[in-house]
């Protein structure tokens, strides 16, 4: 009687090569799905309601970051400028930009707040004090927000379809982070920076 065991052990080099190719093809496919396809499927993209040219406002108009992104009197961060801040200069269009035209027509004239999609917005269970970091620790805005202040156009807002968080929190790489320190805003980035600077932290310091 010939056993199955003996039959399988008697395999030709061609069959063995085929098996190895199958493993390699599967491996390549798995890696491709994980590294290339997943980011495309995982993240959705959404356009901002208006485009915004930071360079135009800082270089040409001579504004500083804190002229629009200001701290309140009590030290807390006011976040994005409200519509009144925009309306200070844009009750009428000052150029021929279609986005500025829409700003005036759709928002300033109607008083409707601009529904910006904020890439750097932290989850709701996190509290972050801009005053402590900007004023007390004298950390530059670009340390966390990158070169957004030098951009002529807003990046497309990308969000995680499962967690709904902005991709900016996790970073551009699917494995997390990016080539620059400012590419991600995860908790590990916060704790790493605190550790490097010798700043104590604990859960309730940031988590509400």
């Amino acid at each position: 009687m010939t056993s199955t065991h003996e039959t399988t052990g008697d395999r030709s080099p061609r069959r063995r090569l085929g098996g190895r190719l199958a493993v390699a093809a599967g491996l390549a496919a798995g890696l491709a799905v994980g590294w290339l396809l997943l980011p495309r499927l995982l993240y959705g993209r959404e356009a901002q309601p208006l485009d915004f040219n930071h360079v135009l406002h800082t270089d040409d108009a001579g504004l500083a970051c804190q002229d629009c992104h200001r701290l309140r009197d009590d030290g807390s961060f006011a976040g994005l400028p409200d519509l009144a801040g925009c309306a200070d200069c844009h009750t009428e269009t000052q150029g021929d930009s279609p986005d500025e035209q829409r700003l005036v027509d759709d928002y300033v004239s109607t008083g409707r707040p601009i529904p910006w999609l904020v890439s750097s917005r932290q989850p709701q269970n996190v509290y972050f004090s801009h005053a402590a970091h900007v004023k007390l620790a004298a950390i530059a805005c670009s340390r966390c927000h990158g070169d957004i202040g030098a951009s002529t156009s807003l990046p497309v807002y990308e969000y995680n379809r499962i967690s709904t968080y902005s991709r900016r929190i996790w970073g551009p790489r699917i494995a997390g982070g990016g080539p620059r320190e400012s590419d991600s805003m995860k908790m590990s980035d916060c704790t790493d920076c605190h550790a490097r600077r010798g700043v104590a932290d604990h859960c309730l310091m940031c988590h509400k």
Partner: protein
Amino acid sequence: MTQTRRNFLKFCGGATVGMIASPLPWKLLDDAAIWTQNWSWIARPPRGPQGWRYSACTLCPAGCGLKARLIGDLPVSAWAVPGHPVSGGCVCPAGLGLAQIRFHPARIRRAQRRVTAPDRAPAWRPEDTDLAIADVGHRLRRLRDAGALDRVGILDLRPGRALSTLQREFLARLGGGRYLTLPDGRELAAATLPELVGPQDTVPGADLARADVVISFGAALHDGWRGGGPAAGLRGDHAPELIQVESNTSVTATLADRWLPVRPGSEVVLALGLAHVLLADDLVPASTLARIGDLEAGPHPGYRDLVRRFSPRDTAAATGCEPRDLVATAHRLASARRALAVGGGDPGGGPLGREEEAAIWGLNLLLGAVGGRGAAVLRHDLGGIFAEPDAPSARSLRDLPDGSLELLIVDGAAPGAAIPADLLRRKLAGPDRMLVALSPFASGAATAADLVLPVQAPGEWSDDVPARALAPRTTYMVAPAIAAAPAGIAHPADLLDRLAAAAGGTRADLPGSRRHADLLRRRAGALHARGRGEVFDPADGSTLPVANLPTADHLVRLLDRGGCWSEDPTGSLASRPVRLLGADGSLAPRFRELADGRLPATTAPTDGFPLVLMARGRQGLAGGGPVPPVVNKLYREAHLHAGCGRAHVNPATAAACGLRDGAAAALATPRGRLQVTVVCDEAVMPGVVQVAVGPSPADLGDPAAGASDILMLTAAAERPIWRVEPAALEEVPRG
């Protein structure tokens, strides 16, 4: 490549390995975890401008300073207040959860009527609160009409507050009734001192943080959870040298500079042994000895003769402490410039006995630690300062004969120590007996109740925080509300009003909450009128003498902003005559029994009960208060704290009982038996079974989650001291 089933499987295997080597599974797992945190029904803190509000924690009597961070009007977190006179910039995990505890699963918003028997885990039926109040009012009216208002009692779990005065006023409006308290170990320790030094118009405190050496007889100085803040001065570079006398390796024993392990219940013998060495080795100054009225024999046996019988060798035989350690400890205490001995008992294990506390105070008196920095101090009592009506006079619930009451109303404050449910129940008798709890949560003392009426939770109303027993300074704070109460939930004073109205009592001219606010202002006015002490402003950490405040309104405003009034101790016992055996020598017979080797009967193993059960608890938690969800993770994930229903035993004890770690076992005492899970723990002394008191923190303190009440086995309801109890442990099959 041939398409075969084998190659297909290899392809799948390769693909699986490839995906595992990519971020796909880990990223999806991470995102899925975040997704579960963002389900629509999970409450989320709001966005908006932040603000701060200063207050104090009212989750236990310690009263640590807190600052709450608010988004809009909603508190989202609580922080410690640096430099606070009471808590010194510390706060325990429970206090950090004050902002969240309002949302605890045990929170009640309607009246809850018990549907299970008193000896079973509680289950509740929601009921219309107005109807429930009418029911209680009807019972009160019936008792009053029958001239039986002495069968009505109100139990104040944190006396000395403005609400306490309104509780007395409630009884006065009713026309009678008993105002009851339940002193904890610290209060009993403070009450023992006048037995040795005569009646005082001041109350004793212990300035632990500024002592050079502290010898603690089982005090849970570092085991605090709630109450952790006030122990803050015992840590750090300038902390006193700590000698812990305790049977088990508690956290305090672990952090102490020296740990003297003693047999359960033998602390008093050790204290008298130390006194023996102090006297025998002439370590007590002659001027101190001259003030001791009963040092030598007179009408009663002398203190010196009694402690002479507690030689190091005899003491070692009774306590298990090495004679050389005893002698070295006594000499260390005598050589220190400021040495202080403290007792107070354990929040879950119960107070020390009268003789233990008297022996400990006796040590302080011998060491000269009676007045001044780092010593036992005398400070003014707030009751005398406020001079509010104190009728009906307070009486301890323990002193009340069983069956004396038909209706007992229990206050909703979280006590600092364990309250045996059976102690409350056994005071009731009669066909219509009823235990009514006024509580924001169906936990703690409320679990023993027949009816729970909802009141506002800690942080939702402005309670006041007087200095707790044995505090080193007289302090007074108002804990301003940091959050709005849910609609329809009454202020505790308003609920008393509604009960009084339902019972047909006399009406007050103002609503209860208004009278409570007025009372807080009058208290601030009384402090201002004295012109003494100082007030701490948490906003900037400054301290102002009260005399510098131009009007009482300034003090009112500071207290309303979370300020803390404090006054240094004023009295000293350094020159007063003392009697170390009590004014009438009543301690002498008990000390003589101890010298004869007769420890309390409960401390010795007996036939069929070869082990000793020691209940232990954490400040506040032992009283069964709710566990803030935010810190519940500590229990679930870290196993850092002993959980209820788990019997911690030394591995040698477990082996002797034929038990292994994790085994299900029956813990039996002469009072009954409970099923427990065995935890082998090197920190527990051989022969001892240690069980935590209170509801299981792992279940968020839910009393219905199966936590067993270990105090039922310790006869805590029957006697004031229940720290040790003969016990047995035997395996039972799981099923």
